[in-house]
Structures are given as C-alpha cells and as structure tokens.
C-alpha cells in the first residue's frame, strides 16, 4: 500500500478558460459564470482575487467584484470541454474519477508505466495542453495529498512526491485546503490554526468534540492518512430512501418537505465523509399506481442542502402528475463521489463565506490602520469569538441613514481590523 500512487490532474479556472476560448467580447474584465441554480460555477483569476468563490450567490459575487462580467455557464460549451478533458484522462488509466470541472484523480497503479513516471506525466499533460489548456498535476500516495500538491504546483507544472514525504509536505500547507465547512475553518482561524501540520497535531478527542466526525476525517487527511480509492463513475455508489404517504399527497410543498427530511438523513453521512451527490432520481408512484421517474443532474456534485432542495424542486417539476396525487416517492442520490476540490487563492487567504452573510462593500467600514491597538484587539477578539461566537462582536455602519425605521438604518459586519 505504501507504493500506491494517485495523480490529481486539473486545469486551473477551467470554466472561465473555456468560456474565454469560446466567447467573444468578454474583453479583459473579470469573468464569473453561474450555474442554473444561480450559484457561481466558475471564476477567472481576477474575480477570484476580488474574493468571488465557487458556490456564492449572484448577490455575494456582485458585492465583491461589481466590475466583472456575469454570465450563465450554459452559454458556453463547458460540458463538451469537460467530456473532452475526461476523454484524455481515460486514455492514461483504467481507474479515474472526475472531481469537478476540469479536475480528475487518476489511479497510477496498473497503468503499466513501469519506471517511466515522469514521461507518463509529461505525455498526459501534453495531451491536455493540446486541447488548449494549461494543466497542473500532483502525484503522491493519497487523493488528498495529490490534490494539495497539484494545486500548489500551478499551471504547466507537475509535482511528484514520494508517499513517505507526504506528511511533512502537507504540514506546511494552509489548513484551508481541507474541505471543512466555512464555520469550522473560521473557528480554526480564531484558534490560530493556520497550517495542516498544526491541525494534524491537535488532540484527536478535542477535534472530534468540536468538529465532529468530519473534523476527525479531515485530521486524518492532514496527517497524510487518506486511504480513499479512486472510484470510476461506473462504480459510483447510490443511496436511496422511500417515502410513503398514508393519504396520497397533492400539496407540492408538503411533498418537498417530506423529501427534504429524507434527503437530510441521506446527506449527513455523506457530508461527514466529504462526499457529494451528482444526480437526483425520483421514482414517483401516483395514486393511480402509475410509476413516473424524474431526475436532475447537478453541474457540480454537492452535499449542501440549498442546492439539493433546488434540485428536488426541479425534479418534482418534471414529473408528469396529470392531476394525480403521489402515493409514494423513492429518492435516490446517484453519482456519489468526493466533494469537488475547491480552487483557492493561496496568496489572499480571504475569510470563508457564509450562506447569505454578505459583507457590504463600503470603504468607510475599514478601521483605521493602527497599530497595536487594532491588532491587539483583533487578537483578543479572535480568542473570544472562538468561545462566544463571531456574531457576538460587531461593527455597525449607517448604510441606510434615511430609512424611516431607526433599526433598519444600520448594518453590521464583523470586526476585521
């Protein structure tokens, strides 16, 4: 097992690169692409530097980068490009796994490369480059390690690391590489945990108490202990649950609420293992005993409740009801894979974003740069926020001073020094 090797191949800013290749008149402005749920699907480096990240709402993205071009991803042949990318990947190994747009894991065992590891990497990267993209590649003994190394490598670079050196390499990397939820990353920031090495050294019981099973799994990864296999799409798991109604339901809201309860139960263990769902399949048995299938495929695998709810709504809308109520529904989550690797800007460690906690772009909110006072208070607040919650400490700003209701004249933001 010690010699097991996994490669992570990715094209930085894949969606934006494809859109720029296909689109005309985009100019030099930053580019942000949305999926059909209105969430950011892809960004280019300029938008990323401005603080826009995948998964944000349009409102959040606009607040951070108002000068960007905002467009729907469906306008560009991104999915054809993704198919072409995976077509190249499958030529080099039997076992490969997509990990989001322009990202894939490759199992390097059994590729018959012998000792020609470097030439194998070079020819793989060369094939992708021939399609007009500039890939990066990382290879080591685990999927998490390979993804970190690949992201550190950057465009047109391959970094190959012997599995034994993986832990020491990971120890110096930012803890934000872990796919923890934004709250957990914020807590780590408040606790002064900046690197994977610091996180790896935390007491296991403490991590389990504070961050749950997902935190403990993440700590294993930070320690270089990631034994997840590369799972090809045809071997991807499915989970399902059946919801039966005592009296057939016609109310779409109640039906959706019942499905969401089942979805939560199915998604919780997946989230703890940092897995995500690629598609939803609903098998509806109507009151007249007819069975109607309907489905929805996500543009990027997800385990978040918000997108899943929207996906369920879309799938329910596709069911041919013909005025009949539902007697039972079987909910199946298919295409289960690892959650997509998040592209990070390593130079600007922006605070993780919340669901709808917008930061108001207002330069007046900036505190005067000072010196020890602000920095000293910030250090104290980081410590206190870990204990009492970051929402406890706020700065107010009069963003709507003419509002008739005094309580609506101010908005709040966290103290960020």
């Amino acid at each position, binding site marked *: 097992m010690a010699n097991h090797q996994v490669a992570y191949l990715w094209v930085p800013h894949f969606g934006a690169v494809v859109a720029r290749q296909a689109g005309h008149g985009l100019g030099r402005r930053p580019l942000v692409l949305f999926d059909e749920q209105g969430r950011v699907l892809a960004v280019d480096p300029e938008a990323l530097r401005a603080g826009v990240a995948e998964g944000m709402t349009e409102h959040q993205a606009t607040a951070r980068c108002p000068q960007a071009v905002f467009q729907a991803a469906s306008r560009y042949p991104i999915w054809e490009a993704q198919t072409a990318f995976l077509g190249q990947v499958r030529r080099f190994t039997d076992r490969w796994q997509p990990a989001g747009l322009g990202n894939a894991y490759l199992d390097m065992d059994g590729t018959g490369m012998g000792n020609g590891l470097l030439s194998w990497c070079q020819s793989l990267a060369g094939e992708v480059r021939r399609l007009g993209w500039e890939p990066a590649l990382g290879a080591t003994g685990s999927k998490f390690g390979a993804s970190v190394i690949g992201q550190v490598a950057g465009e047109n670079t391959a970094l190959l690391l012997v599995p034994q050196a993986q832990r020491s390499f990971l120890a110096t990397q930012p803890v934000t590489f872990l796919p923890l939820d934004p709250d957990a990353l914020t807590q780590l920031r408040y606790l002064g945990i900046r690197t994977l090495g610091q996180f790896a050294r935390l007491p296991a019981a403490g991590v389990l108490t504070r961050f749950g099973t997902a935190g403990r799994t993440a700590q294993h990864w930070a320690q270089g202990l990631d034994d997840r296999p590369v799972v090809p799409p045809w071997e991807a798991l499915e989970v399902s649950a059946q919801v039966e109604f005592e009296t057939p339901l016609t109310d779409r809201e109640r039906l959706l609420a019942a499905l969401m309860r089942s979805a939560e139960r199915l998604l919780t263990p997946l989230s703890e293992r940092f897995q995500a769902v690629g598609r939803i399949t609903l098998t509806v048995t109507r009151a007249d005993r007819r069975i109607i299938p309907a489905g929805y495929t996500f543009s990027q695998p997800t385990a978040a409740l918000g997108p899943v709810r929207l996906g369920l709504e879309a799938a329910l809308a596709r069911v041919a009801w013909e005025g009949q109520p539902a007697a039972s529904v079987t909910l199946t989550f298919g295409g289960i894979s690892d959650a997509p690797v998040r592209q990070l800007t390593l130079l600007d460690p922006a605070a993780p974003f919340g669901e709808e906690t917008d930061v108001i772009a207002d330069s007046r909110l900036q*505190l005067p740069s000072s010196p020890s006072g602000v920095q*000293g208070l910030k250090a104290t607040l980081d*410590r*206190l926020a870990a204990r009492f*919650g970051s*929402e406890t400490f706020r700065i*107010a700003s009069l963003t709507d001073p003419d509002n008739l209701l005094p309580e609506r*004249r101010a908005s709040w933001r966290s103290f960020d020094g």
Partner: protein
Amino acid sequence: MSSRYRKLEAVVNRLQLQHGVHAIRRASISEAEAPTPCLSTAFSALDAALADAHGKGEKGGVPRGRITEIVGPATSGKVTLAAKVLVAAHRERNALAAWLDPSRTCDPDYLHRCGVDLDRLLIVRPEERSDALLIALHLIESHTLSALVFDGCFDTGEGSAGETTGALERLATVVARTMTAVLFLNEPTTQHQTLAHVATLRLAISRERWLIQQEDVRGYEGHVTVLKNKLGRAGVVVPIRITFNGTVRADGL
C-alpha cells in the same frame, strides 16, 4: 524595630512573588496626589463638578481606569451621557471603544447622531446575558480600549449572586491596571450592591421636563446627582440640558 521591619519586608517580598507586585504595595503620597485622567462628559457644569478633588486645574469628567455607574430611569439621558464620553474617548488618535449590549437595544443611528465614530466602536451582543461580564473582563484586559460601556443589567447565571460579586470585584482590579473608562448604565431597579461598592463614581440622572418647540420635542432638561465620588465631592446636583435636532447636543459641547 529594624529586625521587625526586615521580617515584614521578607513577608511582603514573598507575597509579591506569589500574588504579583500589585497585590501588596506601600501607599505613596505622590501617587495619591497624581490627577486621575478623565474623559469629558460634554456637560461643562458636570465636568466642573467632577473635577479632581485635589484641584491642580485639571478638567473633570469620567475617570479612566475606574468604574463609573450611571443610574436613571428610561429616557433620562444615560445613553446620551455615555455616548458623549465615547466621543471624548475617540478624540484620541486610533482610540477604540466597546459597547456591551446584552439587551440588544443599542441604536447605532442614535450613537452616530451623538457624534460617536461607529467605525471605532465595537458593539458586543452576547447570546447569553451571563457571558457579558466575562467578555467585558477579557476586553478590558486586552488594554486596547479607551472606554467601555455596559448597557443593561448583568448577571453571571441563575442563583449566582456570589459569582457576580466576585466577577465585579475582579473587574475593578483589572480596570485599575488599564486606562479604560468603564461605564455601567443601570435602571434604579437593577442596581447591584457590589457595583455600587466598587464604582469610583456614581451618577444618578433624571429628566425633569421636555423642551418643546413648535409642537416638536427638541430635547429635555434634567439633573445629575453625584451619588458617590472617590476622587472629589459627592452630593452635588448639576442641571443638564440635552437638545436634538438631527444631531444630539449636550449643554457645554
């Protein structure tokens, strides 16, 4: 005599090693005479009444590194008085202040009208009311605040009057080592005996009449009674006038 003195000195040294140099000290006349730095209340008559007992021409106000309690019923002017102290605190370059708001009644718009620089005011709204005193203690210990206002009643949990007393006594000790002016705003019904004991200054504020101009309320007049003042005269009653027309002005500003 000298051997007894040496013995006492050895005991003092041991105690200072164990509990810190501040735990036991010789009283110093020069230290006692040094004027206590103050923040102006913006009410000139009140500042004059609070001037240091030792004179020296120092302007009076709310003392820094001490606890001040302002007691008064609703709409008597407690928040306005505290806000004006924050304005004085913010006159220092890069000075920061905090407003503890466990009851979540703080109105940033009103503070802004009083002249408070909101960008340099940290508003703290703990989820549990009982956390407020502890947070105040930590913030003051950071030595980064010029002033801290604690608006509303406080406690450290159910049935823990002893804990609250202990926390207030510790707060007084910590505040004394800093340059932070700490103000507690209390209703007459929520006064705390220990707070009254540890406070250097206690002011009772009350409203007497509204100032009405062309059927609009343009302010009010009231008076402040100095209930306790460890640094000067107590028992003084000072008339005050607060007027508002877009901005809130205090008499003497």
